[in-house]
């Protein structure tokens, strides 16, 4: 009887440990690795995303206000002095060409997304792992005369990189995820024609990689500015006399 009692106690203890372990495993599995996830957790991500988007909008508005005040002061000075007026005009031209101002005009919007996959493939992103296709698209758009390009609101500038970093594609040092929205300002028909050639970039993306690619011609498209401080550590301008 005493022996049986000990067996029952050990059995119940084992049951208890099993219960604790199963709870622990199910809690971890439902957090970051997909599977059955509590709805509250998903809503938490949505709330956090909305919060950071609002914070970004506030910061952007503050920046716009400050830059307007700076431009007003520069314009006032330019009106008084023709030398300054010429400098300000050059500065605006260089700013535009550097991509540090918002621009708008006719162009195309290209949407690139992964194919609809079955549940065994849904965790693998084809476009992320073949990010060089995005580089190819940008190159083809530039070749077709695009004056401004952005991918997921990241303006393509002279220093922009498009590189794989873990499970994301980094553009301007910022992680991005599919779907990719590529905006380009230029002659819409030329841009669209250059991309949709038979055997061209979009043909390859659809036929070889099975990606979902959609091109829309737009009368007016807005491309945001390059959003970072520009610093040169090594390069220096050469005075005009030396050019």
């Amino acid at each position: 009887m005493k022996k049986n009692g000990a067996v029952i106690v050990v059995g119940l203890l084992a049951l208890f440990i099993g219960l604790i372990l199963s709870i622990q495993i199910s809690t971890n599995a439902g957090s970051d690795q997909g599977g059955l996830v509590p709805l509250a957790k998903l809503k938490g991500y949505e709330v956090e995303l909305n919060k950071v988007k609002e914070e970004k909008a506030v910061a952007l508005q503050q920046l716009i206000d400050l830059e307007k005040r700076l431009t007003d002061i520069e314009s006032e000075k330019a009106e008084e002095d023709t030398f300054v007026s010429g400098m300000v005009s050059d500065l605006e031209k260089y700013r535009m060409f550097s991509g540090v101002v918002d621009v708008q005009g006719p162009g195309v919007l290209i949407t690139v997304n992964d194919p609809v996959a079955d549940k065994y493939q849904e965790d693998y992103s084809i476009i992320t792992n073949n990010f060089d296709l995005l580089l190819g698209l940008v190159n083809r758009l530039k070749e077709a005369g695009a004056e401004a390009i952005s991918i997921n609101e990241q303006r393509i500038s002279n220093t922009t990189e498009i590189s794989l970093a873990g499970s994301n594609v980094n553009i301007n040092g910022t992680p991005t995820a599919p779907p990719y929205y590529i905006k380009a300002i230029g002659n819409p028909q030329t841009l669209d024609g250059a991309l949709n050639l038979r055997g061209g970039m979009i043909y390859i993306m659809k036929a070889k990689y099975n990606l979902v690619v959609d091109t829309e011609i737009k009368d007016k498209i807005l491309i945001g500015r390059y959003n970072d401080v520009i610093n040169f550590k090594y390069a220096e301008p050469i005075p005009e006399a030396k050019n």
Partner: protein
Amino acid sequence: MNRRNILIFLLCVMLGFGIIIQGKATHGEMLYVSAKTITDYKTTIESEKIEIEKTENLIEKSKKELALYEDSSTDNADLLVSNIEKEKNLYGMFSGGTFTECSAVQWN
């Protein structure tokens, strides 16, 4: 008899503990989501945070320039002109519109 009572008491405590944990671990309604969806959420949040940081850096830069322009104790006309010249060189270099020089590696 005493030992048996202690064992029963301990078992009851553990069972109670287990039931409470089970109750606390209940998350309400569950939904099937792929790992990619969660990663994409995290990436987008991370991306927005980086954008906020970059914008704040630009705000700092603009504030410094504005303070420079509005500083009434100095001759702000000269400061303004020299700052426009500096900005013109910076954006000229960034856009590739001006000649630049630096120590570098050259491949032939």
